[in-house]
């Protein structure tokens, strides 16, 4: 037998319901906490959702955030947020800052004059400064983006739910989508807790989490469906345990390969995309957890009607059994 890296023993027999109060209860608690953070701390919205202007500066001189702030705030602008950016890929003499400005008047985009004044003041402070990017989003668009994002999440969830309902049973659809929402909300909670900038790309990341996490859950469900036909008399809970054990090796493999790839993006992909990579990284972790500990628990709670199986009346153990790959 050749040597192989094994993430799980060949045959496992874990009882994934044994500490249900801890695992499933913990998930519920984490979700509640996520809502609490979301409600109390709020999200650190980027200009996509709040409107305003961001300037990215790049200079060979070290950045004095206080001096930057003083220079920007002396201009006719509203709130100013300045953060220094660090990244392993920067050169030794590369100093980058992100400056977020909101307009002095409510419901207005930052005026061009104000922006020019800000830039002039910064150049006066540091002649080596360069403005490598500049983005302005008006209040009208930012409001719409919030709406579109919520719409996108809802449409995706419903789409996935319909698909699973079609391919499995409605209990699976509900369990799967609730597990998804668990992943997404906890990720959002983490963004609220650490006040990481929340912009449009993060929404894309959350949608990607939906896609990834359901992928994991579906593989478990698929095995569950197969085993339900195979072991007609085994209690539902045991069939579930068996299915998760059987797919455990695959679940871990796929999670690890995805985490490796996304982790590489997070570390080496540059600071512009770090928030996005981080969100996906968290989502993959949570998605793996929820497909093992959350989705099937919900199905078990609702219960399955196993009397009328097989549904299509065919003794085939498998809907795709006759497909030639």
């Amino acid at each position: 037998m050749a040597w192989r890296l094994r993430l799980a023993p060949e045959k496992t027999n874990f009882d994934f319901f044994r500490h249900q109060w801890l695992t499933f209860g913990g998930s519920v608690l984490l979700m509640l906490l996520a809502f609490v953070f979301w409600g109390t701390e709020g999200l650190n919205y980027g200009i996509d959702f709040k409107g305003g202007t961001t300037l990215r500066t790049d200079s060979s001189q070290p950045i004095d955030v206080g001096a930057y702030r003083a220079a920007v705030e002396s201009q006719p602008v509203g709130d100013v947020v300045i953060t220094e950016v660090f990244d392993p890929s920067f050169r030794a003499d590369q100093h980058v800052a992100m400056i977020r400005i909101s307009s002095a008047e409510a419901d207005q985009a930052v005026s061009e004059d104000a922006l020019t004044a800000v830039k002039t003041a910064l150049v006066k402070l540091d002649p080596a400064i360069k403005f490598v990017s500049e983005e302005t989003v008006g209040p009208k668009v930012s409001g719409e983006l919030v709406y579109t994002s919520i719409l996108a999440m809802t449409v995706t969830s419903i789409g996935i739910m319909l698909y699973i309902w079609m391919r499995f049973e409605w209990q699976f659809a509900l369990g799967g989508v609730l597990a998804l929402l668990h992943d997404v909300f906890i990720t959002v909670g983490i963004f609220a807790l650490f006040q990481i900038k929340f912009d449009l790309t993060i929404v894309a990341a959350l949608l990607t989490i939906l896609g990834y996490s359901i992928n994991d859950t579906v593989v478990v469900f698929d095995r569950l469906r197969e085993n339900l036909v195979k072991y007609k008399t085994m209690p539902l809970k045991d069939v579930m345990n068996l299915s998760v054990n059987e797919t455990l090796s695959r679940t871990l493999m796929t999670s690890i390969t995805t985490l490796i790839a996304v982790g590489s993006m997070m570390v080496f992909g540059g600071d512009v995309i770090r928030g996005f990579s981080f969100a996906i990284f968290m989502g993959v972790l949570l998605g793996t957890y929820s497909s093992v500990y959350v989705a099937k628990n919900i199905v078990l709670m609702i219960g399955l009607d196993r009397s009328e199986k097989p549904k299509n009346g065919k003794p085939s153990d498998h809907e795709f059994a006759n497909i030639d790959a």
Partner: protein
Amino acid sequence: MLYSPLWKRLLILALCAWGIAASLPNLFYSDVEAHNDAVKAIDAAAGMATPEQTAELARWPEFLPNAVVNLGLDLRGGAHLLAEVQVADVYAQRIDSLWPEVRDALRDVRDQVGSVRRMPSVPGVLRVSVGNADGLAVAVAKVQALASPVVSLTGVGQKDLEVTTEGQEIVVQLSEPERVATDTRTMQQSLEIIRRRVDAVGTREPTIQRQGSDRILIQVPGLGSAAELKAIIGTTAKLTFNTVVGRTTNPAADPGPRNSLLASSDEKDVYYIVADEPVVSGEELTDAQPSFDQNSRPAVSFKFNVSGARKFGEYTSANIGQPFAIVLDDKVISAPTIQSAIQGGSGIITGNFTLEESTNLAVLLRAGALPAKMNFLEERTIGPELGQDSIDAGKVAVIIGMVAVSLFMLASYGLFGLFANIALVINIVMIFAVLSTIGGTLTLPGIAGIVLTIGMAVDANVLVFERIREELRIHKTTARAIEIGYERAMSAIVDANLTAMITAAVLFFLGAGPVRGFAVTMGIGIVTSVFTALWVTRFIIELWFNWRKPTEIVV
């Protein structure tokens, strides 16, 4: 023994060969781009090539594919604007220009309707008060006769004006179908004009798209800043020739009814009072070219169409010795005195232009005026350095991610892991091949999409390999185990990838800009990864299996 049908094996080979050929140009990005630019430039010059262009042309051989992926704004740097066209402006213009017609029409029936007066109202609505209330019905009929059928597919059989009465007043506005038709025309016109103006500056592959009902997205790679882009498209370039009523230095002077006080563009503290109703407007221009006046100063020569030429000729012959104003975007650029009747419809605009200004003005006049004002809702400028940094970082992340995942697969599945890794490389190649061929745009989140695909692409293989292991454990023969492994893993793979596809589709349809780029690479990645993981690895496994004929295998 394991056999796929011959056609399938040939198809797989053909697809892989195509993938390699079609993605190849991306490895020599700058060479291919230089070649493509040269091809375009030579085409534009009707086949005449300068020596430099010939040299550029030679940087990439003609017989190889030359489609490369477009780099998004966040990778190449450039300017992005989201503009909202004030479509309602056009209603107001239409209604305003209707007033003289309404007045003339009602004048014919003066004995029945009495005196007619225009009443103040919101823009886009014409209110006319009629002196004699009994004549209201006659007046309404007269105004209704001015309406013409709506020119559109949906509004067939409907009139363009909606005429109602309110007390002693006739209220005229555009009807609903006419508004819809007008909006469509306004948007098309705006798009066309923006396209012409941006093209005149000559940058590479600008994106000019209509978004939603009244928005236009403009992305110009390689442009310095959004402010520059705004300067190119922002000027409405509305040119009119108006009667001059007076000239003053008082900025607060009262211009009187139906006149406006307009500043002079080159003389400080000089204001002209001009009549609101233009004699001729820029829409009647057929041509405008930069030229020089008698004193060899830069000027713009223009030519009117037939009706413009007639109006201009009549006006100039009736007003010899009087000044008239040439008004551009509400500024008087010059107010020459009419020396003689100008027949034939061509003339020259002088002002204190520089050569560049006269060239720009000619371009703007030729392109035509924007039909309505635009508000800029979103402005983004990305510097080329930042884009290059992102590309470099993305490359490093892709390579490291891929090497790490490959090593991991190798350690976990040995020889089969190697097969999966070959498929993984082909997968990346295929993604670039498809992106290049469909002219897709690669954005920074798009690169992240590729990285994510690397992680998820091996998933299908993991599913298959795990399944083969299970089958081997229950002592199936090797060939049978491989076959069943693929068969049984199929349903999980289909379900997993279809649900991921739902997400990609939603992201594509609801996402904007970079996010859409992510959806594209993710969607392509899903399709290609299923192809490579199922077909390509199976093909390789079959080759290996039939060659070595192993009696037992270790996955």
